[in-house]
């Protein structure tokens, strides 16, 4: 059973890393600020969610999982707010 859990956690972690890589690729390759923000925040948020899920499963502790979910929520709020502020500044130019 624990082997299955480890495999699931591993898949989630790798998938999360993949999304982060995709977001960074978007950052480097997209032509302007708004599209870069779009790629970065969407991919990174999903990537972080997958990472948190994988780590929560791997930790095997409900307390640690709860803390990880809280971190994910805070990070989500922060990145949303910052993306909004950056986009607003960009549009004002």
């Amino acid at each position, binding site marked *: 059973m624990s082997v299955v859990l480890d495999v699931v956690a591993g898949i989630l972690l790798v998938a999360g890393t993949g999304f982060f890589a995709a977001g960074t690729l978007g950052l480097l390759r997209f032509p302007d600020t708004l599209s870069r923000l779009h790629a970065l925040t969407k991919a990174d948020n999903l990537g972080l969610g997958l990472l948190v899920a994988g780590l929560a499963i791997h930790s095997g502790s409900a307390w640690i999982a709860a803390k990880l979910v*809280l971190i994910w929520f*805070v990070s989500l*709020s*922060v990145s*949303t*707010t910052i993306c*909004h*502020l950056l986009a*607003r500044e960009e549009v004002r130019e």
Partner: protein
Amino acid sequence: MIDPGLDVLVGGGLVWLAWSLLRDPDLVRAAMTFIVFGLLLALAWVRLDAPDIALAEAAIGAGVTGVIVLDAARSLPRPPVRAAWPAAAPAAALAALAGVGVAGAIVAMPDGSPGLAPLVASELGETGVDHGVTAVLLAFRSLDTWMEIAVLLFALIALGTLLRTWAPLPSVPREGQDPLLSWFGRVIAPVAVLGAGFVLWLGTSEPGGAFQAGALLGALVIVLVLSGLASPTGLPPGVLRGLAGVGAAAFVVLAVVGALVEGRFLRTPPGIAGEAIVVVEVAIALSIGLGLAGLALAPRRKPR
């Protein structure tokens, strides 16, 4: 975890970022690179088994310092920044010599000396806390911590003096400034306060403590002011400065009490040492939080 390749990557990244940010003619970009540098440095602290420093670096070293430098980069006049002075070749030589000297000293060091760790471990029982770094900061070397709070206060006072006539940035009006930022400020406030309390309490037995909790509080104050939910001039000026001074005051109390009860300056009576340290840590966290926020927000204060 025993992967030297990762360390080479982190270390190489640090050197590359530093080299890149110091020669960047665009100062705003240099400031942003500096924030990234700070975050990568926090990762290096984790690799070096220093989680307390990692927390503080991310919040204070990258966060607050980054805000200060970024704010300055945007506000200062911006002619094209010139390249390094050509007459500075001796400076480059001196810097290279310093680097080589340090590197040579490192390579020549004998391996594996235990340092002061055994001494700390043996005296830990008397301090009332279980975490080595907290014990060093608040029991063994509490004088250093006291002086550091004093330095923070002096910087704050100096800023108040220097920036007295600085033209204010557009002051943030009431909450209507940006709805998402206001939402964020409202949502994050209880999380930050609870998180700060939790980290402070945790610091007695695990990585954490007053500095990290103070950094969280300071970041919260900065967010609240920037989102318009709190005004830097709203409160009577004495209140904020008084609260910022509470950390230093706590140390004075501790010093005097210690001297009277135990006969030695800054000595905590062993029975209540643990509780006394937590009380002092709360005072320090308040001081550091308000102090850091004051340092970052000072340029925005309206002149008298």
